[in-house]
């Protein structure tokens, strides 16, 4: 054999063999007894999870597409009260002949289907004329849930509502209410339309003359809260409708004063950017005599152990604070990593929602010791917002309906940091969930016999 052949053979073999042929990615199962795996994988679901009731005093309720009306009391004694405020504007195209005659005036409201509370009772409501201007907060340009504006002593009209069968004065579709309004106001508006047409059709002159409308439940005559479509500039927008007839030309007609669409903002600029800039819902809870009576401010917390082992969540008003104080106890198991942490909670039977109406997601965020918002809960290692409580709805087996949350990042951060826990979790209804509403969710705590609250953590230890 020639040397050259040998040399090239040798070199090519070295090159060839330097490439890896091994199929190291082929995996085969050697069962659990080939070698002892020193990795301990532990599931812990007995860690203490404390829940607390917290309240929010103010939140903005203007620029919304729904008005709320009514009053309802839950099984735990919390009373929720809603009234709505809005302004109306004249139709600039209104043109009434001098030969016409005023007939009647109605407030037309379209229900949007939202309701909560005891709808087997008939509710009674009153419509008032405002004597005070609706003024937004000059800084935030919002109106808040706890604000109220003065109204006339005598209502312009009243109506009853049977949500099982909507009662109307005249024959209009059953998802709307037509409230008869004091004809004196109707006559006044009619006369102005005829006599002072040019000035009354100016928004600002009209606003000075008619400051707005407030609709509120009659005290003690309402056991439910319902929603009214508040979107301006639609067929189902709230409106005052003035009926008139003309004897000479023999016709009936009406003119509308719909909910205000164009407004002047705090800088004095005319705008239509935000719908219902000057309209809002007044929502208050009366905690007197309820389980959470002692909660006095938004910084307060009240353990669910002293509130029948339940805590409350209500849009804008009530949130549940969750503390997991003993995460560092995992170190007794050795050093390891948190693989996942999932929080399960069951809504109480006594909550205001039918199971099918439970929001499909609940929001969760990090708050400080004074219940102030700190940050959303991120997915570990990412800026993607993480914790979304997903409703697991299962009527088939044991009626298990529960929310489950991935709170891995929170548990991991607490586990990794040596400091005393600085933040807690705050559970709330999602901000975009059918807002505004007064839905309540009642969540059981770990001491509850009926409702499970459980944190399931997987840890690996090396």
């Amino acid at each position, binding site marked *: *054999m020639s040397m050259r052949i*040998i040399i090239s053979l040798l070199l090519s073999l070295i090159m060839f063999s330097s490439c890896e042929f091994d199929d*190291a990615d082929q995996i085969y199962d050697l069962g659990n007894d080939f*070698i002892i795996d020193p990795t301990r994988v532990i*599931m812990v679901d007995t860690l203490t999870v404390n829940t607390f009731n917290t309240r929010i005093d103010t939140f903005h309720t203007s620029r919304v597409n729904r008005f709320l009306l009514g009053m309802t009391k839950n099984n735990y004694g919390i009373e929720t009260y809603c009234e709505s405020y809005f302004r109306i504007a004249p139709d600039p195209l209104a043109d009434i002949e001098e030969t016409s005659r005023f007939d009647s005036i109605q407030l037309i409201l379209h229900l949007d289907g939202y309701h909560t509370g005891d709808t087997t009772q008939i509710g009674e409501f009153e419509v008032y004329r405002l004597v005070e201007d609706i003024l937004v907060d000059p800084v935030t340009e919002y109106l808040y849930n706890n604000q109220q504006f003065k109204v006339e002593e005598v209502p312009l009209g009243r109506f009853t509502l049977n949500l099982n069968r909507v009662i109307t004065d005249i024959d209009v579709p059953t998802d709307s209410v037509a409230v008869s309004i004091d004809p004196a106001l109707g006559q006044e508006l009619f006369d102005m339309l005829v006599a002072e047409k040019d000035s009354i059709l100016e928004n600002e002159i009209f606003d000075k003359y008619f400051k707005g409308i407030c609709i509120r439940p009659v005290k003690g005559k309402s056991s439910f809260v319902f929603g009214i479509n508040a979107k301006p500039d639609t067929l189902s927008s709230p409106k005052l409708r003035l009926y008139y007839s003309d004897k000479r030309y023999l016709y009936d007609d009406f003119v509308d004063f719909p909910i205000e669409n164009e407004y002047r903002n705090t800088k004095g600029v005319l705008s239509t950017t935000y719908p219902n800039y000057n309209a809002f819902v007044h929502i208050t809870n009366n905690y007197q005599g309820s389980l959470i009576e002692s909660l006095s401010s938004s910084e307060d917390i009240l353990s669910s152990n002293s509130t029948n082992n339940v805590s409350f969540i209500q849009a804008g008003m009530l949130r549940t604070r969750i503390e997991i104080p003993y995460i560092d106890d995992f170190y007794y198991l050795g050093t390891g990593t948190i693989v*996942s942490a999932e929080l399960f909670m069951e809504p109480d039977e006594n909550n205001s929602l039918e199971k099918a109406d439970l929001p499909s997601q609940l929001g969760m965020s990090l708050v400080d010791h004074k219940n102030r918002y700190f940050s959303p809960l991120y997915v570990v290692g990412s800026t993607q917002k993480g914790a979304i409580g997903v409703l697991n709805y299962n009527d088939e087996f044991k009626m298990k309906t529960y929310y489950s949350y991935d709170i891995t990042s929170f548990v991991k951060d607490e586990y990794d940091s040596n400091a005393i826990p600085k933040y807690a979790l705050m559970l709330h209804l999602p901000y975009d969930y059918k807002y505004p509403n007064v839905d309540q969710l009642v969540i059981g705590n770990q001491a509850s016999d009926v409702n499970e609250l459980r944190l399931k953590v997987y840890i690996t230890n*090396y």
Partner: protein
Amino acid sequence: MILLLLTTFVSMSQNSTSSPYSYFSLGDVQNVAYGRNIAIGGTGYGVRESVYLNLKNPASLTAIDSLSMLYETGVFIKFTRNSTVDGDSKYLDGNISSFALGHRYNSRLMAAFGVMPYSQIGYSFLTSKYIEGEVSTVFTQWKGSGGINKMFYSLGLKLNKNFSLGGEAGFYYGPIIKSRTTTIAAEPGSPTTYTENSQYHGFSFKGSFQYSAKLDDEGSRLVLGGAYSPSYRLSGISDIAIYQAYDAVSVLTYTNEEKAEKIYLPSSFGGGASLTLKGKVMLAADYEMARWSINPNLSENKYVDQQIYSIGLERVSRNSRNFFEKCSYRVGARYDSGYITYKNVAVNDLRFTLGMGMPLRNSLSTVNVAFEIGNRGTLSRGLMDENYSKITLTFSFHDYWFMKRKID
């Protein structure tokens, strides 16, 4: 030459084996043989040959009397079929097997140096168990690579016509990279990976002798040889890292630099003899014992003393015009009792070898082909049965070749 040396260094870090048994300790210890010795069952203590480097016994280096330089290198391809009760998997590995260079100081002192893999690690397998606190499965995927290389310098000293002494100093170095990825069946998106990258190093020394007696004038000869190597410790640093995956994101949750788990190279001794009959046939046999039990027991498995028996037969090459007559033919067998017991079963290894040495024209250089077929382990007690076959090509070049190139 330097290029070859570099290639050797680089490629030795590659996977050269695929066996879950290589998980333990240093992995698959490649203490069989190199070059020509592979084909004669790995025997070598009592083997004495003028045209090959017999690295098993440095005292045999003195047999190389007429040459001033001898270079050996080899490559191998290994096919493995691993069987468990659940099924089989097949692997193909390949790498450079060794590199060695022998040279001569004077007529009494001969030296050799080189690099060879001492142990090889390569595995990827799965185990499963239950979570503590829940009836739910955890899968652990084990992966390993790397291995310990040995750089050595050997000296053979001829005391007289019959008796030689040998010594070898070795430096061991290399990475052992192990990882295990634990996946909870209920949380498949969040595996935890523990990686341990250890760099080991250590020294060793081996002393040996060889006694050769001429039996007649027709080429019959008896050679006796033996070697002893005390125990040495390999130490090193391990970089530990734990990665926790959360869906698509992997987070480094823990790092540490620790002293690597100590591993003791066993003290070992061995002896062997070879008998050459009329210059035509050589019969060799070796016994070797390595005291692995010096290592502390692993939690699950036990180190045991390793015993190796090997025998080999060679039809010596002849002076002839016929190429096939000039070739030498070899056959051998080797039994290795193993150094770790799994579930109290020693994983032993039995192999048969077959080989051929082909001389290169007009030189003393040879190309040696060795074929090994063997079996390791057992299917019983849930263990794994490993069947392998391996072809090794070794090139033994000698100075004559180098001289010729100079003339070119």
